[in-house]
């Protein structure tokens, strides 16, 4: 029969984990290991590396660690057995500003080459050449010439000097890995006048680009929230800008907006809307005066923002539409019964309901827009007042070949981003499930 014990004072929760859960835990770690390995390697590692590079005066060319370059050649064009020839090693320090210490060259003497004379720092031991060159200065170059005569073996071989690669050893200070740090990069970017304008442009771009995409998305979602024939087609069409490769749409916009041969400008001028073609992507600002106050309208930036809004509205549209379709229609029926007019329904019911997804979208899009590089790079290359931080990373790092400065800007990007992400995590409404 059964007994039921009201087990009174149990000893509190058991410590540790049971065997079943332990098995599960190891399985989980095993399954996650490859993923996290690759993410650490390709994402987390580089993030840290950025900080490292940003405090080092690294130019693009410094990526090549200073080494001594060797070039081995046979000179003198020996044609017959016994002809004299010269085995020449050309050496140079690849770096213009780092010396290389303990340089030693070693190589196999090609078969059939009888050495007559060995230059001073070198010695030959059983067909093996060793030259101890010591410390060489930045930009150093030298030639080592081994005189000798050739035998038939040498002549028969195809490019006999190639049979062994000369080996070179040496130590040098590698700017990438040494422990010299400098804040020069940061000083440089913060003191450049344009940095602050870049920052300002970045925020304009981010805020208005995000806002534009959201507003368009909201409107589009309203349009497609009703059932009508052709709705599926239209929904597909509305997603085109987002789905297409950025490269294609960006160039299309460039072509479309071209001031000389672009369709849009032609249309505007021919129909008499504007007198001169407008260079949408090239002109920094349009000046106009409003109530006598001269003002500037940042044209290129606005166009780039318009592109951003155009390209990403489909995404907010999708999310908002999905959210709208999940809103209980009962609520609207209740509102109908309550006598609310359509606009009242939108204002009092739809909008508050969408606030959650809108704010999540705003934050996420804000971050993504902030991160955006390709669009502006392809549209304007960051010119005409459209350079954002991300484009600046490229400009500094690659266009100007100053990796250190580029990394410093990247650090700034990252820091700003972390701030946003923190805000995002704090303020995102949990129920939206993002």
């Amino acid at each position: 029969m059964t007994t039921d014990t009201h087990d009174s004072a149990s000893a509190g929760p058991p410590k540790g984990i049971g065997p079943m859960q332990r098995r599960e835990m190891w399985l989980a770690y095993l399954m996650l290991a490859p993923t996290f390995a690759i993410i650490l390697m390709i994402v987390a590692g580089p993030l840290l590396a950025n900080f490292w590079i940003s405090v080092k005066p690294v130019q693009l060319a410094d990526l090549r660690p200073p080494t001594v370059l060797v070039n081995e050649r046979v000179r003198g064009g020996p044609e017959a057995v016994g002809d004299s020839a010269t085995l020449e090693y050309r050496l140079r320090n690849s770096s213009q500003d780092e010396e290389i210490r303990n340089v030693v060259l070693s190589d196999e003497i090609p078969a059939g080459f009888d050495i007559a004379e060995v230059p001073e720092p070198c010695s030959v031991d059983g067909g093996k050449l060793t030259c101890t060159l010591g410390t060489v200065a930045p930009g150093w170059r030298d030639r080592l010439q081994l005189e000798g005569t050739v035998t038939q073996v040498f002549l028969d071989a195809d490019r006999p000097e190639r049979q062994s690669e000369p080996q070179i050893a040496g130590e040098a200070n590698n700017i990438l890995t040494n422990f010299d740090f400098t804040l020069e990069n940061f000083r440089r970017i913060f003191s450049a006048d344009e940095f602050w304008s870049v920052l300002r442009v970045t925020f304009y771009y981010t805020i208005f680009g995000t806002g534009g995409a959201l507003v368009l998305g909201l409107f589009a979602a309203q349009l497609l929230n009703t059932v009508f024939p052709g709705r599926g087609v239209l929904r597909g069409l509305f997603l085109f800008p987002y789905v297409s490769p950025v490269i294609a749409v960006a160039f299309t916009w460039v072509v479309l907006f071209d001031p000389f041969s672009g369709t849009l400008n032609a249309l505007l001028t021919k129909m008499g809307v504007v007198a001169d073609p407008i260079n949408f992507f090239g002109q920094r600002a349009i000046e106009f005066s409003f109530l006598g106050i001269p003002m500037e309208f940042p044209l290129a930036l606005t166009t780039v923002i318009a592109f951003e809004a155009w390209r990403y509205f489909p995404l907010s549209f999708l999310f908002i539409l999905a959210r709208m379709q999940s809103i209980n229609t009962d609520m609207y029926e209740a509102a109908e019964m309550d006598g609310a007019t359509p606009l009242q329904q939108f204002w009092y019911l739809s909008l508050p309901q969408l606030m959650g997804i809108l704010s999540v979208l705003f934050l996420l899009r804000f971050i993504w827009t902030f991160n955006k590089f390709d669009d502006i790079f392809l549209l304007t290359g960051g010119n005409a007042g459209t350079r954002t931080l991300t484009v600046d990373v490229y400009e500094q790092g690659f266009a100007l070949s100053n990796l250190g400065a580029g990394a410093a800007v990247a650090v700034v990007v990252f820091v700003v981003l972390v701030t946003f992400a923190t805000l995002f995590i704090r303020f995102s409404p949990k129920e939206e499930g993002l």
Partner: protein
Amino acid sequence: DTLRFWTTEEQPERLAKQEEMAAAFKDKTGIEVEVIPVSESDLGTRTTAAFAAGDLPDVIYHTLQYALPWAEAGILDTEAATEVLENLGASTFAPGAVAMAAVEDGVASVPVDGWTQMVVYRKDLFEENGLAAPDSYEAILAAVEKLHNPPEMFGFVAATKIDENFMSQVLEHVFLANGVSPVNGDGFSALDEKKTIEALEFYKAIAEASPPGDLFWKQSRELYFAGKAAMIIWSPFILDELAGLRDSAPPTITDDPTSTELASKTGVVTTLKGPSNPDGAAWADIRYFGITNDADTEAAMQFVEFSMDDGYMSTLSIAPEGKFPIRRGTSDNATEFVDGWAKLPVGVDRKAPLTDLYDAETISTIVSGLDTASRWGVKEGQLSLASKMINSQVINRYVREYIDGERDAAATVAKLNEELAKIQ
């Protein structure tokens, strides 16, 4: 293994010619050459990157601006280049071009061809309006004054897109014309304020007579071809398409894209004078074969030698209108190449020798420019520094800002001097 050859002549037709030459080289030596097109605007970055990664190509076809900086950075194997030059006979080369690439004990790379920059103008309109040929600031401004009538006709199409080499070239030409140079024999020398301001003001004036926006060679040519620009600055490469020989860049002034009409209405000027430099100056660009330090030196040298010798005519025939021979001839026949070049037909979709298209005077203007042309730092022996300054695009940027009205001329000069001084 295969040689890798980077070339900035990346249009398919031109690539095809280079591949032909590579094939010929292979027939001769058995060495395979892979011809890799690289955009001219990317060349600097990509080369540096490849250097950093230790996978430089064997040979690079590059412009003058890179020759000395790369030699200094250890990208180019100057000894190999010098040896090639010697093997071919240094005396067979035009001395000016060799001098521009000269390093301590030889050359940075082997000069191949060159061209001079020209002011291309509508001779018919100038004649109609009684204007003098646009060979000075003054003459140009006068013509702009007269002819500028947007949107039907723009007085000029200046270069304003700062990340294009084109703007550097045009600016340098304009500065040179007024005797402005950022270098002297000791390195950096502050820009002369008065002369620079003159040049800046001139440039601003022509920029204002241009359509708005980021302009570079593309717009210049399109507008001129459409008959909407009175003057542009361009390289001689324009000569064939101007005559309707290339379908992908047709003159649109008439309905017939193959018409030579525009060519017949066009005049050119290569030497430009500024108010403070009555002698004026021409601007030339020279292209070189550079052998890199990562190269298979022997093979690369053979390839360059071949291209400059047996293959030289096909090298030039890529675009004879913009590739004037730097190597005049061989030791046997001192003018072999010059003569051959003169007979090369230009054009892509249709072909014709230059002499059929332009009058003799025009052609001689173009060709003779190469002898007098110069660049910043050539005379002073500071070409390398000057190239770096150009490559940094500092001048472009501040001139553009000056044009956009962010700074006045004097402040711009000061700013330029400040920034240029930082470059070593």
